[in-house]
C-alpha cells in the first residue's frame, strides 16, 4: 500500500499541486514585506528561518517540506520504473525521464546546501583597505575606478590582490573573482568619497545547481530525441 502510494504518479501530481499553492502564497506574501525577504540572500536560510516566527515563515516551511516530498517521490518513482521496465523498453526511453529527474534532484540538493552552509559577507572599502573574509583569505583593494559608460551610464572596476598572492585581480559587475571557495563580487562603487562595496560569497550549493542543470539538459535532450522519434520515426 505504502509502496504503491510512493510510486504513484497521482501522488506526484498532488504534491505538485500543493507545491504550486505554496509558490502562490509566496507571490502574495513577499511583496507585503519585500524588505524582509530581499535580505534572505545575505544570510543562511535555515538559521534565518529558525530566528523568525512561524507566522512569517509558514509558507517557506511548507514549500521546503513539499519540495522534500517531491524529491523523495521522484527518487522512488525513478528507481521503481527502472526496476519494472528494465529490459522491456529501449534504454534511452527508459533513462531519459530518469536523467531529467536526477538533474532536478541534484539541483534541489544544491538549494539545500546553499540554505545551510557557506560564507556571506560584505564590506565598504577604500583604496588600500583589506577585506578579511576568513582566517587566511583576504583581499586588498588597490584601485577603484568609476567611469562613464555609453550604455549603462556608469561602470565600476576594482583592482587588487588576494593576500599572500602577487597576481593582481580585477572585479567588475557580473564578473566576480574566485579563490579558496570564496567568490568576491562588486556591489557598488562611488566617487565621493571614492569607495566600493564588495560582497563575499562561499556557496558550495551553486556547483550542484549548475551540475544538476547540465544533467537536466542532457536528460531533456534524450527526452526530445525519444519524442521526436515516436512522432516522426525519422531519428
Amino acid at each position, binding site marked *: 500500500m505504502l509502496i504503491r502510494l510512493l510510486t504513484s504518479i497521482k501522488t506526484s501530481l498532488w504534491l505538485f499541486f500543493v507545491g504550486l499553492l505554496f509558490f502562490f502564497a*509566496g507571490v502574495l506574501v513577499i511583496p507585503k514585506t519585500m524588505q524582509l525577504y530581499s535580505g534572505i540572500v545575505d544570510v543562511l536560510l535555515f538559521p534565518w528561518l529558525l530566528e523568525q516566527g512561524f507566522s512569517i515563515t509558514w509558507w517557506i516551511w511548507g514549500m521546503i517540506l513539499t519540495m522534500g516530498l517531491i524529491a523523495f517521490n521522484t527518487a522512488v518513482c525513478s528507481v521503481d520504473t527502472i526496476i519494472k521496465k528494465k529490459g522491456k523498453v529501449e534504454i534511452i526511453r527508459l533513462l531519459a525521464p530518469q536523467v531529467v529527474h536526477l538533474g532536478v534532484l541534484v539541483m534541489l540538493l544544491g538549494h539545500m546546501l546553499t540554505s545551510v552552509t557557506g560564507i556571506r559577507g560584505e564590506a565598504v572599502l577604500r583604496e588600500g583597505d583589506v577585506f578579511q573574509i576568513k582566517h587566511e583569505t583576504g583581499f586588498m583593494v588597490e584601485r577603484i575606478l568609476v567611469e562613464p559608460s555609453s550604455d549603462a551610464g556608469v561602470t565600476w572596476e576594482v583592482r587588487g590582490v588576494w593576500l599572500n598572492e602577487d597576481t593582481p585581480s580585477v572585479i567588475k559587475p557580473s564578473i566576480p573573482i574566485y579563490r579558496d571557495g570564496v567568490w568576491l563580487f562588486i556591489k557598488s562603487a562611488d566617487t565621493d568619497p571614492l569607495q566600493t562595496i564588495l560582497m563575499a560569497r562561499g556557496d558550495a550549493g551553486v556547483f550542484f545547481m549548475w551540475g544538476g542543470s547540465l544533467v537536466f539538459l542532457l536528460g531533456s535532450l534524450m527526452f526530445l530525441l525519444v519524442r521526436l522519434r515516436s512522432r516522426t520515426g525519422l531519428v
Partner: protein
Amino acid sequence: MAVIFYAMALMGERALKLSVPVGLLVHGAYIVHRAMLLGRLPVTERLDILSMMSFLLMAALLVINRSKGRVEYFVVPMASFYAFMSIFQEEVNTVDVFMRSPWFYLYSSFLILGYVLLGIGTAYGLSYLLGDDDEMEEYEHDYLLHGWLMLAVALMFGSIWFFLAYGSYWYWTAREFWLSLVWLYYGGVYLHCRYITSFNGKPAALLGVLGYPLMLFNYFGIGTVIQSPWSQF
C-alpha cells in the same frame, strides 16, 4: 504597421502567405533599427521583448503545420496583442550595469523563445478544443514540451547570470516565484498528467491551455498588480 499586415493573414491562406512576410519585413526592419540604436541584441527591455515575441510568433506561423487546424486564428491575435502592447511601453534605451553579461542575454533570449513556443502550443490546444483534428492536441503537447524546456534553459542561464551579478542564484521576489510556478505548472502538472495513458484528449488540451494565462500574468500582472523587482522580463 506590421500589425495591419499580420491581421490580413486571417483573410485566407493566400492572404496569409503574402501579408505575413511583408509584415515580418517591416517588423524585422524595426527590430534591426532598435538593435542598431541600442548597440546590442534588443532583449533588455519590455518594449523590445514584446516586439520580439510578436515577431517570432508570426515567423513561426510560416513554418508550423497548419493543414488540419485553425491555429492562425489564435497566433495572429496573440502576436498582434504583443505588438500592440509594445507600443505603450516606455523606451528605456539604457541597460543596468549588472545586465551587461552574456548570461543575461542568453537568459532573456531563451525566455522569449520559451514564451513563443508556449504560445504556439496554446494556439494548437485552442484549435483542438474548438473541434479540429486530434493531431492538434499532439502538436500542443510537442510545443508545450519544447516551450517548457526553453523556460528551463532560460532559468538555468538566469541562475548563472544572477549568481555572477548578485552573488545568489535565487532571489526572493514575487517575479521569481511566479516564473517558477509557471515552470512547475507545465512540467510538474501538465506534462506529468499527459504521461498518464488515460489522460488525453480535451482534458489534456484544456490543462495545457490553462497554463498560458499563468504565463501572461507572469508578464503583465507581476510588476503591475503585484509589485516585484525585475518584472520587465
